[in-house]
């Protein structure tokens, strides 16, 4: 053990009560930081998982019309530059199979599913509701969604094997009082078709569960009178966090609009981010108090230990040794506080994870969602380290600036 660390350990005992206060605040600051981050990011990640399980990571939609080329073809005019950046779209993906093949060539792509979407009216024996149908090829779609895991009643195989089978959201099925095996009528553009409930799914996202009906793609094409192409391609990625980069590349290469999930859900993601930052700021108050307490404690120790500082300086201890001795004290309290705070944070996070909390709306859960992320622990400790060490620097430097001659002369007189 270095002499400075040894001295720091002993000096710590000089102000036990004040040091205990600093330690307690550090423990609380680190612990609560971890808990709040674990809960807020827990819900955010669960929401993200739900969204990716429904809509995939990237959606390739309308074809981009090259306005510049059409303008150039039309001949130069005064308004050429004003319209240069204008982008027009041709609705849908006409060459769905070719585009899907091209998308599969991207390294990060896990699966692609062509979807035909349209508005319909759904009529059961009791009621009529507006809904949206999604024509899918189930083998492709289970690779880009969590549909297989979202089935709550019935079997996905029944949907796969039956051309007139439909997958209904749980909320819609309840509203129409439909159960597996019941039949109902879908109406679109003056055409009607009778299908039956092959299975019922639940994503937890209420808007989806009350309006989305999945059909075999052939049935959907027939009902919507769309013999070819797709409304969009749903793409899943091995690493969804890279969706914006992949989407930008796809857009450039394929000439179709490509939206990453981060852009589609930016409103909710912004809400979660704001929540996370606001709780981080609130909880950091504890760490701020810890740093102020540490400042106060060290300032008191400096006042009390001026003679010791003088004797250390007379024995050959340099100014930087004195600074180190005081920073070590803060470091020791920080180390103990960070460890105890991390344990407290982990314990409380576990306890919070057991709290029953039914939520249904943008996702479905029956208890508090928490995440176990080492980054939360690192961030909590880093915040405490920065705040406490910065606060400790002032008294430590003040101690180092003391002139031993002045101290001894003052005492001797």
């Amino acid at each position: 053990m270095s002499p400075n660390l040894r001295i720091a350990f002993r000096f710590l005992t000089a102000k036990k009560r004040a040091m205990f206060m600093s330690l307690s605040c550090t423990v609380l600051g680190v612990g609560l930081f971890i808990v709040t981050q674990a809960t807020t990011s827990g819900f955010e990640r669960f929401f993200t998982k739900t969204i990716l399980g429904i809509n995939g990571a990237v959606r390739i939609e309308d074809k981009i019309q090259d306005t510049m080329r059409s303008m150039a073809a039309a001949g130069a005019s005064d308004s050429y530059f004003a319209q240069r950046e204008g982008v027009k779209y041709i609705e849908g993906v006409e060459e769905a199979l070719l585009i899907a093949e091209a998308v599969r060539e991207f390294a990060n792509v896990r699966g692609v599913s062509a979807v035909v979407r349209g508005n319909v009216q759904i009529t059961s024996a009791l009621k009529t509701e507006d809904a949206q149908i999604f024509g899918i090829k189930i083998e492709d779609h289970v690779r880009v969604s969590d549909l297989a895991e979202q089935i709550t009643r019935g079997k996905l195989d029944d949907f796969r094997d039956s051309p007139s089978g439909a997958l209904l959201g749980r909320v819609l099925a309840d509203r129409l009082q439909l159960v597996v095996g019941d039949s109902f009528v879908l109406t679109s553009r003056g055409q009607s078709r009778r299908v039956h409930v092959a299975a019922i799914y639940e994503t937890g996202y209420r808007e989806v569960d009350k309006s989305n009906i999945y059909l075999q793609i052939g049935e959907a094409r027939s009902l919507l009178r769309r013999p070819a192409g797709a409304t969009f391609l749903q793409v899943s990625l091995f690493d969804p966090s890279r969706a914006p980069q992949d989407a930008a590349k796809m857009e450039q290469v394929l000439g179709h609009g490509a939206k990453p999930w981060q852009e589609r859900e930016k409103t909710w993601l912004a809400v979660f981010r704001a929540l996370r930052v606001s709780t981080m700021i609130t909880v950091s108050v504890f760490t701020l108090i810890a740093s102020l307490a540490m400042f106060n404690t060290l300032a008191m120790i400096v006042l009390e230990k001026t003679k010791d500082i003088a004797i250390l300086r007379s024995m050959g201890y340099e100014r930087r040794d004195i600074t180190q001795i005081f920073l070590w004290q803060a470091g020791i309290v920080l180390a103990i506080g960070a460890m105890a705070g991390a344990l407290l944070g982990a314990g409380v996070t576990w306890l919070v994870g057991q709290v029953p909390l039914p939520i249904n709306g943008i996702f479905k859960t029956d208890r508090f969602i928490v995440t176990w992320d080492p980054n939360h622990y690192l961030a909590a400790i880093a915040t405490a380290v920065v705040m406490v060490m910065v606060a400790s620097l002032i008294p430590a430097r003040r101690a180092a600036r003391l002139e031993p001659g002045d101290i001894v002369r003052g005492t001797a007189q």
Partner: protein
Amino acid sequence: MSLAPSSIAGELALRCTGLHRHLGQGEGRVHVLKGVSFEARRGQVYAIVGPSGCGKSTLLYLLGLLDQPDQGQIEINGKLMSNHDDVARTAARGEHIGFVFQFHFLMLEFTALENVMMPMRKLGRLPQAAMTARAHDLLEAVGLGTKTHRLGTQLSGGEQQRVAVARALANQPAILLADEPTGNLDAKNSGVVFDLLTRLAKEQGQAIVLVTHNAEIAQRCDFTRPMRDGLFI
């Protein structure tokens, strides 16, 4: 007990020439030292005496490199130190100078043994076992061999000052500076501490410079240098 050979006795350990020092600021600024010159050789004991405020302690702190002169030079072991930066002067203090103050200045959270080891730990020349052995020897030499593990608060004033003497000698410095080392002790303890200081320092070949008001102590030194108004008389 002999902790080191005294074959270096007589060598010049310390020399200062033309030291000036002002203290205070503005109208309160006082010219405390007015061109003091002094030298000390190893194995000799020097007493600086004089009335309060004549500049004795100020001179001692300058010689100990705890303070810097406004003018003049200080050489330690033949090396000019007064114009060096704080780091070099601090290193020189640790290596060549030992201090004993009037108010012992023990670090009270540490035991007697740890206090004595403190300067050795900083200098870092000896391994742990050798440092412990030397600290034990020094405490034995000052008569505290049975109290090595007592905290500063568990020792009497005289015992604390003896620990301070042992600590000052820990790194075998060339120079031992003592500011009223017996000023806070009764007559019996004063004699004990002075005897220890001079005996051990002479055994190890240190130059001892002490500031004292005690005439009896001053008479027992090899040289007495009276001061008045910032100058040696």
